[in-house]
């Protein structure tokens, strides 16, 4: 469960304060499927970063699973990210020198899991995302859709509660974009909260709950 309470995020641009998020409150329950839409600079990515604990609000509280994350230290936040949050990015952000399976393995390595256990998990993830025959390929040898599937496998290997996807189809053609969305929706059906930031109304409208933002405020939440 996620609860945001009057969150403010202010950036200083020259002498002016720019409100990327202005008094945003939001409640998200387990298993929800949410899309966040809005024009560029409306604060949707900032909101995603705050939910993902990559950024801290200047004001307000963010409670994740009854823990007030705004009180946590950087190190503690990193642990929360590791275990409860998965990220999917527009540019995939795979480590170029590592193979697909090594990229998927990365969160397990950071968590200090034993190599035998890691192997099993990565193997079943590769099967789930139909990447087994691509396991030894490096990112530059994969198609866009395959890269994003590797990224999703990496985001979910720690079995997080929330998957945050920032324009996951922004860099893909229609067909692979659709495939990626379907994979994410399948994950959501298993009970993971899916929050999707997108420009594309076709994709945004597939979500059960649609939030639209303008100028750092929530305009619409249906």
């Amino acid at each position, binding site marked *: 469960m996620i609860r945001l309470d009057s969150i403010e995020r202010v950036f200083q641009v020259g002498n002016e304060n720019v409100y990327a998020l202005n008094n945003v409150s939001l409640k998200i329950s387990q298993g929800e499927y949410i899309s966040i839409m809005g024009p560029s600079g409306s604060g949707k990515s900032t909101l995603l970063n705050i939910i993902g604990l*990559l950024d801290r609000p200047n004001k307000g509280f963010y409670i994740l699973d009854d823990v007030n994350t705004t009180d946590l230290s950087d*190190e503690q936040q990193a642990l929360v990210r590791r275990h409860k949050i998965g990220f999917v990015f527009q540019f995939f952000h795979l*480590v*170029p020198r590592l193979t697909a399976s090594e990229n998927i393995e*990365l969160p397990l390595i*950071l968590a*200090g899991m034993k190599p035998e256990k890691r192997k099993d998990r990565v193997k079943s993830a590769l099967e789930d995302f139909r990447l087994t025959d691509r396991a030894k390929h490096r990112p530059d040898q994969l198609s866009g859709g395959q890269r994003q599937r590797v990224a999703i496998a990496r985001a979910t290997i*720690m079995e997080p509660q929330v998957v945050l996807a920032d324009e996951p189809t922004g860099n893909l053609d229609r067909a692979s974009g659709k495939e990626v969305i379907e994979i994410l929706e399948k994950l959501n059906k298993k009970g993971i909260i899916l929050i999707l930031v997108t420009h594309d109304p076709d994709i945004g409208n597939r979500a059960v709950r649609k939030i639209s933002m303008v100028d750092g405020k929530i305009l619409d939440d249906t």
Partner: protein
Amino acid sequence: MRAEDILNFSIRASTGYKFRTFLILIAMAIGVASVVVLTSLGEGARQYVTSQFSSLGTNLLIVLPGRSETTGGPPPLLGETPRDLTLDDAIALKRSSAIRLISPISVGSAPVSWKQLEREVIIVGSTSELYEVRHLSMSLGRFLPSGDHRRGEALCVLGNKVKKELFANQSPLGEWVRIGDRRFRVTGVLAKKGQSLGFDMSDVVIIPVASAQSLFNTASLFRVLVQASSREAIPRAREAILKTIRERHDGEDDITIITQDAILSTFDRILNTLTLTVAGIAAISLAVAGILIMNVMLIAVSQRTTEIGLIKAIGATRRQIMHLFLAEAIILSITGAFLGLVVAFGGVLLLTRILPNFPIVIPFWALATAVGISLLTGLVFGVFPAQRAAKLDPVQALSRR
């Protein structure tokens, strides 16, 4: 994160950027190799000088007649002193427990002839102890026999060069040579040995000290070589010599004592300082290598900004990122140091081929310091880039493609 995973990740990261890794390794290797090779040369020079000096004999004290109050000038020669240093003085020195051996020396020059051949040669009058005190060795026969120093037997030992010039390839053993107006029987020939303590030991003839004294018609000695019973006994031996001679010379300190150790330790100090200086200069190249490591690691941090953002997003703590980058810097410097050692050993091997007479040894402390300093530079110069990586703001890091 498990230690082996940190190591593995860092090694993968180093091998992922080959050119950069190659540059760092070269810089580090040059630094370490120059430290090791230069200190080896310095250490070699020190050992060379030390061994040259100790070939004079160990724990040696040299007693000269007369006293020089000032430094400089040659030591006083025969007949310049008010009171001679006599054979009895020398024998009296033997009573001290701090003194193991004494070897009185009397020197003169006389024609030496065998059949039709004659040469003017330096004649050294001494005793059987000279053999041990001066670390002599024989190429033929035996040295002077031990016995009463006051008895002048008609025996002589030829220097290598003298033997060659008088006897060529024949064996001189048992032959009688004429020295001045007396005849001496040859008992042995000295092995080749370098110049030391003023004479060329291959161009002398050694006869018993009493014979020399009667040959040159003098009671005084040129000097007395004294071997102390141990290194620690040298100051005691010195005191004993002064005291004995004072008693025998009516309370006057009219001798000069030179300890070989004093000379040796001065050289030792000079050469040590030299070695350290050279090593210090070489260490600058290690510092340069360290700065290069810092630079290249900083470049690595900015090259891999998105990667750092990503691993932060998937749950890496600041500490973990610090560890990853530090491990990388240290792996690079260890590998560089190792390569440097290989180069250094190769270089030293080459030098020993080129200069076979010069003892070049790699001192262990140089190895340890070179490797230690390279590790330290890796660590010190790795911290700043690693901190920078750890402090990266993930949002900004990930906003780049």
